């Protein structure tokens, strides 16, 4: 109890560590929620260069303007002007309606409308492309129906011909494709795990690297007892600081959660133990506290990117996939996604727990070997 009490005192009195652990993750959550509060990209700045100025081209311009996610902010007079606006970042989507557009449409000839999307920002580009596609699909269908009617096909038959195969898009688990649902919790948890890693990296070197290590050795305290007590307090602290993140996420920000609190708690606990083991290993190898933090950060910083949360693990090169699987973060972020969106059940999640267990056994085991030599 004395060791546990002192560990808690140490964590509480270390103002920087306390602020990092208590304020950091919560601040991260608020910041990320504020960032993604619009939840989906709407009003994508769009410019339409109507070089035809016909009734048909005005109709098309109106149609583009009424599209859900597109917002016409400029009406340039040439392709070059559209190009200039995209380069300056004033617009993301540029539409160029060519001369003779109306004439070609009325003569049922092919009319080519240029739709340009700024691909320099992937997120913007993906959303803009989706919005543009929905417009072009509708306009194309409308032109096709009119063409059939002009050829003497009955209007109902013409419409039926275009609707004979109905593709119904139905995104499950996140029906509105809300970006906030997808990233806010993951980013906040990423922030949290980095803060925890910093603290865990002090577990062993925080004792062995300072003069008081001699007092502990002279007192004859067993290393196993010492580090077990310290680890228990650290793990409890990490679990305590993640609770407000979940509470805010699910009750205030209404982020989706499909599993029970118990399942989420257990999954987090398993991850925290595995994460703590990685920090402890770093802390047992490092010659000093600064190096221990560096080792920990080498693992913690890129772990979210390679976890497969934002870019599928299967799309990564084989060696990156294997590398990603040996860090607990990959299993955690994948697992959190499953639990919050789908809750696939214990049988599916059991291999995640197994991965945490194996990582913890390997890292704590290695850390024990290194620490025994100190």
């Amino acid at each position, binding site marked *: *109890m*004395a*060791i546990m009490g*002192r560990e808690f*005192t*140490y964590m509480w*009195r*270390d103002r920087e560590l306390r602020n990092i652990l208590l304020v950091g993750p919560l601040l991260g959550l608020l910041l990320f929620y504020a960032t993604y509060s619009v939840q989906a990209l709407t009003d994508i700045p769009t410019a339409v260069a109507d070089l035809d100025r016909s009734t048909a081209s005005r109709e098309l311009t109106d149609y583009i303007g009424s599209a859900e996610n597109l917002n016409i902010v400029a009406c340039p007079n040439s392709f070059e002007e559209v190009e200039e606006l995209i380069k300056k970042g004033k617009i993301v989507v540029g539409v160029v309606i060519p001369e003779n557009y109306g004439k070609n449409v009325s003569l049922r000839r092919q009319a080519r409308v240029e739709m340009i999307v700024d691909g320099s920002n992937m997120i913007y580009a993906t959303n803009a492309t989706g919005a543009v596609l929905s417009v072009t699909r509708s306009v194309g269908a409308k032109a096709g129906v009119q063409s059939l009617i002009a050829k003497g096909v009955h209007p109902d038959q013409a419409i039926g011909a275009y609707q004979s195969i109905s593709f119904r898009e139905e995104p499950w688990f996140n029906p509105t494709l809300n970006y906030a649902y997808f990233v806010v919790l993951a980013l906040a948890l990423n922030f949290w795990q980095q803060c925890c890693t910093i603290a865990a990296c002090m577990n062993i070197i925080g004792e062995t690297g*300072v*003069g*008081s*290590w*001699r*007092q*502990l*050795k*002279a*007192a*004859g*305290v067993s290393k196993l007892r010492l580090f077990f007590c310290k680890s228990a307090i650290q793990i409890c602290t990490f679990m305590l600081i993640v609770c407000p993140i979940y509470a805010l996420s699910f009750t205030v920000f209404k982020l989706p959660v499909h599993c029970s609190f118990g399942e989420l708690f257990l999954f987090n606990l398993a991850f925290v133990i595995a994460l703590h083991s990685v920090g402890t290993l770093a802390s047992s190898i490092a010659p000093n506290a600064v190096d221990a933090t560096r080792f920990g950060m080498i693992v913690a910083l890129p772990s979210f990117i390679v976890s497969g949360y934002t870019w599928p693990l299967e799309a990564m090169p084989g060696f990156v996939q294997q590398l990603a699987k040996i860090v607990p973060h990959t299993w955690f972020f994948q697992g959190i996604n499953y639990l919050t969106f789908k809750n696939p059940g214990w049988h599916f999640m059991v291999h995640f727990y197994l991965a945490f267990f194996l990582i913890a056994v390997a890292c704590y085991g290695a850390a024990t070997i290194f620490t025994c030599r100190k």
Partner: protein
Amino acid sequence: MEPVLIVTDLVQKVGKKTVLNGVSFTVHAGERFGLFGVKGAGKTTLLHILAGVDRFTSGSVETLGYDVRKSGAFKKHTGLVTQKRSLFEDLNTYENLDFIAALKCVDKDNIFSVIDRLELREYLNKPVKSLEAGVYQRLSVACALLNDPDLLIADELINGIDIYSRHIILKELERFLSNGGTCVRGYSDIRFCEQMCRVGWLEGGKITLYTPVEAIEQWDRQIQALSCQNGTDDD
């Protein structure tokens, strides 16, 4: 008298350097054993080995009847005062005493007893970081004596501290010895030899045992030899 410490053919290598090279000596119960040597002679290394803080390359060390390599049980009966600051910097004076008492499984009464004996009452709430060298050393001695040890191992116990703290520490040391305690003290100031029963002179990784008078004479001889060599009259 019963031997408290038996060191036999002790060798300690740090990297490629042999710090202790076949050191052997015995310390008996109730004895004040001085470990003298200039800086870098290996005093701290040897004292840390005796206290079971550091491992050693070869040889054997028996402290209070326990082989230090096989058992740590002797630590319940020893106290260590280190040369460098080794208290818990994140805790205040009282918390240090309380925590070390808990580590040593010592009764709370002992804490208040050492607080009074080493006159620490007015510093109890002060962080150890802010303590002056003399008060810090008094606290270090208090922590070492919390478990009423049979053997006190002290490295540079009163070197460079204020006269008042020195007086309190030496008084407490007398009390400890008069109660049957044994003390092994490391120091690099030859004048402290006078306070010892025997002196082990560490030089070049070897130990030579002297009476305090012999040790001081040996020191004087070395000074004289050096003076003759340089043609000066160094003290």
